């Protein structure tokens, strides 16, 4: 094999089937472009105007963006969004890996149990938001009831600025750890068992086994989990909106809640579009960083598994 990966056979120029790649790619691309061109152009355009309910829609240039960069609640929302994303995604991944390592044991009943763990991610965030808000409530909530029983104190989950943010992270973690769990469980199945046998002969410690053997095989699924979870968590809305409405004060406001506030409470469409675009830019930056990691690790996985999948 030469250093440059050989192209796939599909790609060798065959006059007869030159139309085929277009047949593959065009339907999706045409549908996507057709569906998104107007909304994207509109929202980009409107973000440069003062358009809003009962307001003149004059061109204001980048003033909407500039206004947010000066607005402390934007920075607070950005900070909260990043805090939620970093902690929630981080804990989800860590917990997901731990659970997967536990559940990989083929003990009777484990399979059925793991199915229960998958359920939270199938629920609507709306349902989850309402139920957790209810459970967290110190007056009626079952969770608060138990924390009171255990600690002897009333814990006001949703009305202390720190705990409220933590509560949101807890709920997001509860819902999405199963996603990381699922991906990790799948990733574990790809580890060739003979590697463990070899390692046990070499008397490697459990931690070393995990770091040297398991982790390389998990890197790709985990990065995928991080990628999709980051995209979704940066946009987090339903949970926050339902559980705290951004409160207490603005302690749990996120970028999406801010956008919603501008879009649907103040109905300043131009400014809401500007925040939305700032969210898109933020996610793009994060994703590009992640993808560059992913590109490296995909190559690394291909090398380490040696299956020559470097196509």
């Amino acid at each position, binding site marked *: 094999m030469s250093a440059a990966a050989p*192209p*796939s*056979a*599909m*790609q060798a120029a065959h006059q007869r089937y030159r139309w085929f790649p277009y*047949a*593959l*790619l065009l*339907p*999706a691309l045409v*549908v*996507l472009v057709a*569906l998104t061109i*107007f909304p994207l152009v*509109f*929202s980009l355009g*409107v973000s440069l105007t003062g358009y809003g309910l009962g307001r003149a829609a004059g061109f204001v240039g980048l003033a909407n963006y500039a206004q947010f960069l000066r607005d402390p609640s934007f920075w607070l929302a950005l900070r909260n969004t990043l805090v939620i994303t970093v902690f929630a995604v981080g804990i989800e991944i860590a917990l997901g890996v731990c*659970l997967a390592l*536990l559940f990989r044991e083929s*003990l009777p009943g*484990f399979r059925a*149990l793991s*199915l*229960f*763990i998958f*359920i939270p*991610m*199938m*629920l*609507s965030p*709306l*349902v*989850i938001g309402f139920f957790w808000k209810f459970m967290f409530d110190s007056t*009626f909530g*079952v969770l608060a009831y138990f924390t009171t029983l255990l600690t002897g104190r009333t814990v006001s989950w949703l009305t202390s600025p720190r705990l409220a943010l933590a509560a949101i992270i807890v709920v997001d973690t*509860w819902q999405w*750890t199963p996603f990381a769990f*699922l991906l990790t*469980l*799948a990733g574990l*199945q*790809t580890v060739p*068992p003979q590697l463990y046998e070899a390692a046990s002969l070499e008397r490697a410690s459990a931690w070393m086994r995990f770091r040297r053997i398991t982790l390389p095989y998990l890197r790709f*699924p985990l990065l995928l989990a991080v990628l999709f979870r980051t*995209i979704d968590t*940066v946009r987090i*809305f*339903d949970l926050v909106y339902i559980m705290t409405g951004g409160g207490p004060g603005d302690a749990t406001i996120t970028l999406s809640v801010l*956008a*919603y506030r501008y*879009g649907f409470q103040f109905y300043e*469409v131009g400014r*809401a579009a500007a925040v939305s*675009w700032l969210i*898109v830019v933020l*996610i*793009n930056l994060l*994703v590009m960083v992640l993808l560059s990691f992913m590109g490296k690790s995909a190559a690394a996985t291909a090398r380490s598994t040696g299956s020559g*999948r470097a*196509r």
Partner: protein
Amino acid sequence: MARLKVILKYVAALGATALFVFPLAWMFLTSVKPRVDVFAKPPVFIFTPTFDNYSRVLDSEFMLQLLNSAIIAGISTAFSLTLGALAAYGFSRYGRFKRVDNLLFWILSLRMLPPIAVVVPFYILLRWAHLFDTRFALIMIYSIFNISFAVWLLKGFFDEIPPQLEESAMLEGHSPPVVFLRVALPMVRAGLATTAAFCLIQSLNEFLLALLLTDVDAVTAPVGLANFQRYFGLEWGQFAAAATIFVVPIILFTVLVRHHLVRGMSFGRMG
């Protein structure tokens, strides 16, 4: 010693499962509680269960909304899976150029759009096209997110297929489309099941767009759930019953494809 270890593992596994299941169990209990006990303090665990909430939900318009959700999520998933699989295969087999990479990133970035960014233009567009409050509109809009997701996930699966299989089929005289349909596609069944599961979950649960782009005919289940917020507050019993009815089919689907789900997520890299 080994025995103790197994016991510890069971304790840990049961504990973890309990953490994830408890809120769900609580939701189910709420759905069969008499209304007056829902907020009882201390929480009531023993009561005479009532299925009033279920019968009320089954009689309500929520069932129509559930049907809407099923139709919208089902068709959008099928549609997205079709286009997504075609495109993912295209990107996997022909996507070795920088420009195509950019295209792929553009597709992913569509999934990053906050719904808030697009809901106002969509509203205007749908009004103009007389598509407001139609299932078709939601199907197409959800397809944006689903296609983007499907392309990314499925591309990973197609990348894992050994090239020789397709080469062999081509050499045997099959045209690329046949190779795709009869060799590549059956090999990513697990991937298709996984992608379908996630597309379904996402389309079934989407709230904001469904709220703002429908009003009567195409209202979906999450919006219906939100409408259990009545003047005196959320009708918790009915809300919980409806949420349970809503989630059971998804759970059943997951149980059916669970084998594919775990294998699917490993990108076919199993031994």
